[in-house]
C-alpha cells in the first residue's frame, strides 16, 4: 500500500493593486507577525497603483538615476528588503513569507530565491516565452537599477534582458522575499498570475489556499503606512531614520 502525503497548505492572499506604501506595509506586516501568530507560509501576488519606483533598504536617493525617475513623477517607496531600484510599471509583484524549513518553506535564503524564480520561469515557459535563470555566480551591484545587476537565478528573457529579480529580509528564522516580474509584451497579467500559482504549488509541493489578511495584519499594515512608508524620513533617509524612530 502506498501512502500519499497530503500537500502542505500555504496561504494565498487575494490579488490586489495597491499604493506603494500599502504594498510595502502589507509585506512587512505579514513578515512581522509570522513568528508570533503561527501563520502558514504566505504567498501574495500584487501590483502597484499608481506605478512607482521602489528602492532598496540601503539605497541612496541622491543618485542621479533615482532623481530622474522622481522628476518623471513616479512616487518612491523604500523597501524593507535589500537590492536595487525597481520600476513597478507593466509588471507583477509577489511576496512570500515563512519560517525556514517549516511547512514546506525552503531551508535557506538561497533555496527560497531559486525556487521562487524557478516557479516564475516555468510559468513564463508554459506561456511560450523563452526565459531561463541566470547561472553566473558573481555578485556586485552594477548601477542603481535591479534590472542592470544580475545575480544567480535571476530571470532572463531571450538570454539578454533581466525581467525578474527578488530581494529579501530575514528576522531570525523568518524570511520575507519579494520580487517583480516585468511583463513581456503581449502577456496578460491574469494569465501569468494563474500560471505562477500553479507552478508555485508544483515546485514547493504545497497547496495554496486563498485567504484574506488577518485583522491583526491589516491593522499593523495601516499603522506602518502612516508611521513608516508614507514618511519622507523613511523613504529618503532610510537607515538613519530607523535608528531615530526604531524599526
Amino acid at each position, binding site marked *: 500500500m502506498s501512502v500519499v502525503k497530503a500537500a502542505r497548505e500555504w496561504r494565498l492572499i487575494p490579488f490586489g493593486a495597491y499604493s506603494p506604501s500599502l504594498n510595502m506595509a502589507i509585506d512587512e506586516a505579514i513578515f512581522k507577525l509570522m513568528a508570533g501568530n503561527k501563520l502558514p507560509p504566505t504567498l501574495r501576488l500584487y501590483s502597484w497603483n499608481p506605478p512607482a519606483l521602489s528602492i532598496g533598504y540601503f539605497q541612496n536617493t541622491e543618485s542621479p538615476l533615482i532623481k530622474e525617475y522622481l522628476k518623471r513623477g513616479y512616487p518612491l517607496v523604500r523597501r524593507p528588503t*535589500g537590492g536595487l531600484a525597481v520600476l513597478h510599471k507593466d509588471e507583477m509583484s509577489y511576496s512570500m513569507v515563512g519560517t525556514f524549513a517549516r511547512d514546506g518553506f525552503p531551508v535557506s535564503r538561497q533555496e527560497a530565491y531559486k525556487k521562487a524564480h524557478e516557479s516564475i520561469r516555468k510559468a513564463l515557459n508554459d506561456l511560450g516565452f523563452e526565459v531561463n535563470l541566470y547561472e553566473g555566480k558573481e555578485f556586485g551591484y552594477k548601477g542603481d537599477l535591479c534590472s542592470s545587476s544580475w545575480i544567480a537565478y535571476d530571470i532572463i528573457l531571450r538570454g539578454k534582458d533581466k525581467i525578474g529579480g527578488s530581494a529579501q529580509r530575514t528576522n531570525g528564522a523568518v524570511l520575507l522575499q519579494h520580487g517583480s516580474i516585468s511583463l513581456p509584451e503581449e502577456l496578460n497579467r491574469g494569465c501569468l498570475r494563474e500560471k505562477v500559482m500553479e507552478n508555485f504549488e508544483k515546485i514547493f509541493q504545497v497547496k495554496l489556499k486563498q485567504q484574506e489578511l488577518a485583522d491583526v495584519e491589516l491593522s499593523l499594515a495601516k499603522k506602518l503606512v502612516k508611521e513608516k512608508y508614507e514618511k519622507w524620513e523613511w523613504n529618503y533617509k532610510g537607515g538613519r531614520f530607523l535608528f531615530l524612530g526604531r524599526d
Partner: protein
Amino acid sequence: MYPKELKYTKTHEWVGGSGGFIKVGITSYAAEELSDIVYVGLPSEGGKVEKGSSFATLESVKAVSDVYSPVSGEIHEVNHGLQEHPELLNKDPYGEGWIISVIPVGKGELNDLMNAEEYEKFVEEEKGK
C-alpha cells in the same frame, strides 16, 4: 574553531571584553552564511540597546538581516570603519569586524550565552536542519 574567550548567542552574535565595556560582533559562521556583506546600518554612540532587539542591519546579496544585541546597555563606541569597509565583517569578524561596544546596565546577562564549545555544537545542529 570559535575563540574561547568569547560568548555566543543563538542568533550568531559574539560578545567579549572586560573593564566595563563589552564588544559585540557577528560570528564567522554568520558571516559565511551571509556571504559578501555590502552595506552596514549602524546605530549612534550614546544610544541604548536592549537585549534581544536589533541594533544594526547588514545587506548581502540583496538580503537585509538584523543583528541583535546580547545585552542591554548604552552604546559606548561604534565601528564606523565598517561603513567604508563592510568586508571586514567577512574577513575579520572577531577583530576589525567588531560592530559596537556597550556599557551593560545589568550584571549576569552574559550567563545565559553559550561558550565556544556549546556554540560549535549549536551550529552543527543548525547545519543539520
